[in-house]
């Protein structure tokens, strides 16, 4: 019975509000959290997870992987705040290459 109900709703969600409250309280400047705002933040987080994975899927049209999520974060303004948490993966080879290029440009500018 519960299952059927969950299937009907697009995002039944159900993130634990207690946990959300703990996370909110972990930031020191927070004083009092009203029941309503806690509910809203919980729901907003559910919507956020929904939106992020939807965007990730839309990116490639295939399975949702880390790579497409990182791409979404890079390209969408509203997800910019995640750029440190979801950075694009860079291969070591490419990284060295870019380092070298930077180094070479640096040396050029220096000389």
């Amino acid at each position, binding site marked *: 019975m519960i299952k059927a109900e969950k299937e009907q709703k697009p995002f039944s969600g159900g993130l634990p509000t207690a946990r959300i*409250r703990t996370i909110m309280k*972990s930031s020191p400047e927070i004083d*009092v959290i009203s029941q309503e705002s806690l509910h*809203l933040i919980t729901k907003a987080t559910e919507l956020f*997870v*929904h939106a*992020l994975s*939807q965007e990730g899927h839309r990116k490639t049209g295939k399975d949702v992987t880390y790579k497409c999520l990182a791409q979404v974060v890079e390209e969408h303004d*509203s997800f910019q705040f995640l750029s440190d948490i979801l950075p694009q993966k860079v291969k070591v080879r490419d990284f060295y290459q870019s380092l070298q290029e930077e180094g070479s440009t640096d040396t050029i500018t220096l000389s």
Partner: protein
Amino acid sequence: MQLLVVSEWIAPICEVTKVPRYSKMAERPEDLNLPQSVIGRIMKDAVPDGVSVSKEARNAVSKAASVFVLYATSCANNQALQAKRKTLSANDVFQALRDMEFEEFIEPLQASLEEFRKDQKTKKEAQEQRKKVKDNSGDSSGGGKDATGGAEDKTDEDEDDEGIEEEEEEEDDDGNDDEDDDDDDDDDDGDDGWVKKRKLVRQRKTKKKMKMAQDPQL
């Protein structure tokens, strides 16, 4: 003498047992993670059937969600600070979402808030009703002092009711019914019976506590 000494201790203990619920802090780093299973389910709901979600992606989204909570909280808190308030209100959250460029969330959230408010109202009413029914039946079977003093008993019970209700309301305002919150979210119809049972058990416990606290004083 001994009884007196014990009575002095019981009241503070009752107070102390309440405390952790109000100041629930993150004690371990895992406390700041959201449950993977729920995140996974929301993600699966977001994409069409047959599309899989990699474990790595799920971990990343779960982390991102935690950060989102913190980000939204601090934005909302800024709003509250600007208005020189200490409590985060619903409007603060809406304004924060506007700042964060998540305007598209506001409309569904407003609907959700309406629902939430209605829920709270009906729950409170139902709780009061249940309490009355429960107390009446419970006292008649358990107490059973006199068959003749029925009317008097009833008035006593009513007074009892009021005392408990006040306490319950305080809890609601502070919103620290952590255990119940988990269930409150979406499955109101499905799990209600179970929640009811738990609430009843809790009520009985608080009643016991109150009696324990009161008896020694008498």
